[in-house]
């Protein structure tokens, strides 16, 4: 947009949301040039922060009328460039919409503003013995609306499922400003499952302004253990054996030798750096029978040549065991200046194979890769380490990343298990699905977002012009 149009638009937006809710200054707009995917950047023309659904509706109607691209954004924790303003335009942020609207523990649901931080919901309901199950690693800072946008996962999805299994209803503002409500706290409302369609739609069908989530009872007791394996395959075989035996742990997280090395450098918590794989296994339930389950799990570990098992005997010890996993991203700085966190998924029994394959791809491109996996679901996060100041390294990292994503596809998996397609993986969607499959998805986008201006070029490309430096990226 030309500066004159931007100023006029800013004034009109300020008339809706107030002057202090519109960001115009270039130095302030820089904050919004990317999200947690830092490889590509683009500054938006404006940022607007409505304070209510009604304001969002008026903002969206205005932007639709003047044909300006809209980029929905929570707190910008997307790891796939979901909030990247690749066509310029206006970022519409839900950061001021943070209310918990209602909690109904008897009926196990809560109604939230889209900008509510996941951690705030936990604080409100945990003391009453209830829990919101999806726990992406960014839960201290991500918004519920953002997790709805990507259908976020996390370590505890093994037992409970993804965000989509816990969203009962959505309030969304369509690109033309219409407000729709799908689902609700009651199940099986007659009609199509639009709620299920909107979860994971990555801001391309409208902007989520409110969410009704399902709550679950917190388990009475937990048993957490850190399990050390000399060989990667022994760790993944253990995972397969445990699940095959009918045991569904709350979580089974795998960390490979590289990420453990980073964690040890950063935190010095005594993790063994010469083992190929560490598993954190957590079981939950009522006290009765929990220790029996632990014994069974230990037996499976021993059957698969475990080196060592460390059990947490208190809350403090449990926190300490999880520390290495939860703070692993923060420790990557010990190994590398920058990183990209990939997100693939394969059938569970192929997890070792794909990790080994990714290791070879890393060697080929001389890019070091650390792996964290939600081993129970076959979902993994290869973390590619590089220096963003070195153009050759950036180029090798991007090629390496493409091949790791392809490796997951080749093993019958998906190009994304949790983070979404965003901007980063648009070309991969066309490898996972054929033209007819994509056509059915385009039909959906056409129904909700006929002009294509709501989060353009996320998930699939469109005819909306890109800002100049992204044109080469697409070519």
């Amino acid at each position, binding site marked *: 947009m030309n500066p004159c149009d931007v100023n006029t638009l800013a004034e009109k937006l300020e008339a809706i949301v107030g002057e202090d809710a519109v960001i115009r200054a270039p130095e302030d707009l820089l904050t919004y040039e990317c999200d947690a995917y830092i490889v590509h950047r683009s500054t938006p023309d404006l940022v607007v922060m409505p304070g209510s659904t009604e304001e969002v509706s008026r903002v969206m109607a205005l932007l639709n009328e003047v044909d300006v691209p809209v980029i929905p954004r929570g707190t910008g924790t997307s790891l796939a460039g979901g909030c990247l303003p690749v066509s310029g335009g206006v970022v519409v942020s839900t950061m001021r919409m943070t209310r918990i609207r209602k909690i109904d523990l008897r009926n196990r649901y809560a109604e939230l503003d889209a900008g509510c931080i996941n951690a705030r919901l936990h604080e409100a309901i945990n003391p009453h013995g209830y829990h919101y199950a999806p726990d992406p690693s960014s839960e201290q800072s991500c918004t519920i609306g953002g997790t709805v946008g990507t259908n976020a996962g996390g370590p505890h999805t093994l037992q409970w499922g993804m965000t989509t299994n816990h969203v009962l209803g959505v309030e969304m503002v369509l690109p033309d400003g219409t407000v729709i409500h799908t689902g609700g706290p009651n199940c099986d409302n007659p009609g199509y499952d639009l709620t299920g369609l909107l979860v994971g739609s990555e801001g391309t069908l409208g902007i989520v302004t409110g969410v009704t989530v399902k709550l679950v009872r917190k388990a009475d007791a937990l048993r957490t253990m850190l399990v050390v394996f000399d060989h990667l395959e022994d760790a993944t075989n253990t995972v397969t054996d445990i699940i095959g035996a009918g045991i569904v742990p709350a979580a089974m997280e795998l960390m490979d030798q590289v990420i453990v090395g980073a964690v040890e450098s950063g935190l010095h918590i005594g993790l063994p750096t010469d083992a190929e794989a560490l598993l954190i296994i957590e079981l939950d339930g009522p006290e009765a029978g929990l220790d029996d389950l632990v014994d069974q799990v230990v037996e499976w570990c021993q059957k698969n040549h475990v080196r060592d098992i460390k059990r947490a005997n208190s809350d403090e010890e449990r926190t300490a065991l999880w520390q290495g996993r939860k703070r692993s991203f923060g420790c990557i700085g010990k190994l590398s200046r920058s990183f990209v966190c990939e997100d693939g998924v394969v059938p*569970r029994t192929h997890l070792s194979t794909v990790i080994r394959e990714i290791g070879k791809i890393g060697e080929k491109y001389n890019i070091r890769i650390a792996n964290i996996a939600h081993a129970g679901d076959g979902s993994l996060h290869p973390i590619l380490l590089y220096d963003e100041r070195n153009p050759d390294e950036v180029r090798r990292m991007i090629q390496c990343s493409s091949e790791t994503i392809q490796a997951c596809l080749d093993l019958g998996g998906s190009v994304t298990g949790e983070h979404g397609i965003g901007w980063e993986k648009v070309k991969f969607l066309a490898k996972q699905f054929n033209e007819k499959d994509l056509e059915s998805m385009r039909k959906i986008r056409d129904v909700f977002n006929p002009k294509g201006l709501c989060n353009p070029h996320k998930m699939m490309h469109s005819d909306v012009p890109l800002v100049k430096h992204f044109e080469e990226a697409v070519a």
Partner: protein
Amino acid sequence: MNPETELAAIVGAEGILNEACEAYAIDGKTPRWVVFPSTPEQVCRLVAVAQANNLKIAPFGSGSQIGIGAIPERIDLVISTKQLTDVTYYNAKDMTISVGAGMTLSALAEHVRADNLWFPVDPPQPDRVTIGGAVAANSNGPLRFRKGPLRDHVIGIQIVSPDGNLVKAGGKVVKNVAGYDMCKLYIGSLGTLGIVVEVTLKLASQPEAQAAIFAKIEEHTKTEEIISKIMNSSLDPIYLELITGNRARLLCSGLLNREVSTDRILAIGFDGGRAKVAWQTETAKEMIVASGSVVLKMSQDGEAFNDRAALAEIHNDTEADMLLKASILSSQVSEFIETVDSLAQGKTVEAGCAAHAGNGIVHVFLNGEDSHLISLAQDLLTKAVDLEGNLAVRKAPTHLKNRLEIWGKPSGAWSMMQNIRRKFDPAEMINPMRFISAA
């Protein structure tokens, strides 16, 4: 060319019925032809012929739920999925399987049993219900309380679109956020967005132990209190059901082989590790007794499995004139059932309810005279809407359907749904007028 010639050329002479098609009639609309394709590609070609000849299609699994929906404009061609029963993918260690839409739930269970696996979704009539039909109708059972409804177990769907293309949604992995979640859209779409030909499912490992408890609630006014107590406790039931009226008597005579004077039964199930199940069963029993209710039966393992199957079967609507489905909150279930009972009495209608009490879903089974059924359905819709829920008609005599709000109070997003329908099936070729209709 006569469409029949083209259809027969696709499925062979033995794969087409062109007379005595009454068994496949839907609300009195008998099709001219019924075809039995044996591959998804044949379904594509059949749909193409239908499109070229402006034929109206109805997909048909077992027909157990074929009565759902408003009366179709007409049905020219029924496409049966009976022959689509191939297992195209199965990995027991990954616990995922892809099966043709025509496979029954019982056949699926049999196929995976030897690998210690099962599919934890339990609508009634599993030996009849096909997986494609269950997906199209979003058919669930008591296990939905803990195991989740179908949408939590379906990881991939192959569908023949109204323009005759084979389209894939989802994949073969349990975690997958690539593209729009089209599987969710197709589940419960009643064929209006395409014909389901194959489904990929997430399976579960058989639990070490299972148990069931059935209790008679003596004081009806205490129902909500008991349910609330169980839901707020450390118990982790796999189902929590409230069965009332003639449904309760039916359940009792099936489970206990004797007549028990009861019209309110609470059923709770558990599964998992043996010690966990034993503790939960004991604890639940204590809670039930403390509330003043009477334990009628407790069972374990094989017997508990059979009892759960009997419980699931109580949701079978075969003997009812009308089946209504209320979608309300769990805390409102008891109040809603009171309303059913008092209204039914006033109108001399025989009524029974089978509720997924933990989920707030109440199936209301009615037998009686036409005008009473209509008036009761209207009153119960009003009640459900007053409770900020909804009520759909899942089964009704054809001659009454036009006097009923089949889909209850339309959701605010109904027009978006019509837009989707219009986009996918602009000529409304499949199941015209029966569900979301843009006509």
